């Protein structure tokens, strides 16, 4: 429908496209700055040349080598840590959310309404309000400053449960489940082989959102971890930035590492979003349509 209209009167949309062009430039400027400036060495960065264009010397490889060897290659560790936290936390949160969302949508059990309203209430509890008490609890169990201190809290994803509930309710007809049961499939098999394939777009969405939430997490690992070898890349770069700002003149080389480090840390997320975009967007629309 929209395509028909634009074919009939393409010129009328030109102002909108120009406006859009300006917005795209605005959204891309920080990326452009980081891409350009991660090619520079310290003199190029501080030498007062054009900050939005390349310097004479373009040295991505040298900077990359520096980035991954600085401080015994701690940056590589941070990236691996982030990957581990995002994959394990994201997968765990997704499994729990898919099961719970399906359970809430497809079974009528005592306490269902009450439990589900608790989950909805949890959507409104700010995650950061939980960080300090969770830290205190974990420190009593000796769990702080371990990888579990970051992974376990990321298993909690009430929004994922909400999204899966809405999606399972609409996309998995009861008739199909009843038919599978009538054919002799058990509940688990019905869930795995009949319901699960129907819920796949929402599952991908929840998986991606949980993994990204873990990758992006900052406050929790900042509070939980003191050993910098356990840091995710967000906390690590924050640490470097603090050091570099504290003695600006003495650590000019650290600034170029931070710039390139920011660029490298973004690449996996961008790849994940763009390769999976066809799958997750369908799932995301669900929450906004009710």
């Amino acid at each position, binding site marked *: 429908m929209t395509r028909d209209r634009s074919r009939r009167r393409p010129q009328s949309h030109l102002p909108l496209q120009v406006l859009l062009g300006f917005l795209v430039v605005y959204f891309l400027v920080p990326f452009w700055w980081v891409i350009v400036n991660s090619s520079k060495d310290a003199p190029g960065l501080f030498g007062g040349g054009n900050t939005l264009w390349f310097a004479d010397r373009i040295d991505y490889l040298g900077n990359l080598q520096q980035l991954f060897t600085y401080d015994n290659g701690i940056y590589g560790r941070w990236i691996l840590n982030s990957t581990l936290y995002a994959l394990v936390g994201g997968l765990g949160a997704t499994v*729990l959310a898919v099961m719970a969302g399906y359970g809430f949508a497809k079974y009528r059990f005592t306490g269902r309404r009450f439990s589900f309203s608790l989950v909805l209430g*949890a959507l409104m509890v700010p995650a950061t309000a939980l960080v*300090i*008490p969770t830290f205190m609890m974990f420190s009593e169990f000796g769990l702080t400053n371990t990888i579990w201190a970051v992974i376990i809290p990321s298993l909690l994803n009430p929004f994922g449960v909400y999204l899966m509930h809405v999606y399972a309710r609409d996309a998995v007809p009861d008739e199909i489940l009843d038919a599978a049961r009538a054919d002799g499939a058990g509940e688990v098999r019905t869930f795995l082989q009949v319901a699960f394939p129907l819920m796949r777009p929402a599952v991908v969405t929840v998986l991606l959102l949980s993994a990204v939430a873990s990758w992006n997490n900052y406050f929790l690992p900042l509070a939980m971890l003191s050993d910098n070898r356990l840091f995710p890349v967000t906390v690590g770069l924050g640490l470097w930035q603090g050091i570099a700002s504290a003695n600006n003149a003495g650590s000019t080389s650290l600034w170029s590492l931070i710039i390139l480090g920011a660029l490298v840390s973004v690449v996996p997320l961008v790849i994940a979003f763009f390769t999976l975009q066809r799958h997750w967007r369908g799932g995301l629309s669900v929450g906004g349509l009710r």
Partner: protein
Amino acid sequence: MIEKSAPDAQQRTRRKRSKIRLREQVMGWLFVGPFGIVFLALLIAPLAYALYLSLFQKRLIGGTSFVFLDNYVKAFTDPSFLSGSWFVVRFSLVSIPLQIVVALAMALILDAVTSMFTRFSRLMIFLPYAIPTVIGAVMWGFLYSKSFGPLADLFGLFGAAPPDFLGGNLIFYGLVNIVTWQWAGYYMIILYAALQGIDPALYEAARMDGAGKWQIALRIKIPLITPALLLILVFALIGTLQFFNEPQILRSLAAGTIGPDFTPNMYAYQQAFALANFNYGSAISFALGGIVFVGVYAFLFFTRKRRSFL
């Protein structure tokens, strides 16, 4: 919320029905149970623990003692907590409407115009959401920086002094800009998806009745995506009220401007982890969580949209 079809159930014998009911009970709890355990351990327990901790006070002499609501009285008379809260309120009033207006405008444009360029734009506008907030703040910190940011060059062209988004009053707008950049694309995607879900026959009918493009946008598209608008408003509220990452990261670059009590969350963090005052930190966290919860719930209740969202 879907009820089992009644006539179907009537045909079954009573024994079969009770067997089914038992199955529903057991299977329902088996599916929900694992999340339920995590929910109890990582949400209910910490909240209860925060409440408990917030009722005590550790003193240098005399150890820990029960002080009931003293920590809350202290918080709500503490200039640091109050000024941080006031900042967050002002920040919400400016940044949330801005984010939503930008997101809505972009979603309406992308819904109305389809071309290679708009498809590309949609991805690029969304891109900042894929960036950790911390990295986004680091990137903008560079752009604002006087020593290697482009602002000096840009304003130098006109012979003007560059604005210092890391200092004084401009830090407010510096942060508004970062937050808008980071989130507008995500909200745009949610609104865009909702717009795509509208039946095009409605537009055709409106055009037959003589509605122009603006009228279609204002009278049909926007009212129909109200639930999605409400959803992003709630997201933005919850997110903004717990503001932490961006100012915390910019602190090192804007040391004079952003103090440790800049937002309530930063203040709670400072109390707990820099000053080892976990009781007071917990009280601030709990008060903040409670205010957000009550605020969002009241908002949904009074807009009478509670059912459509929940």
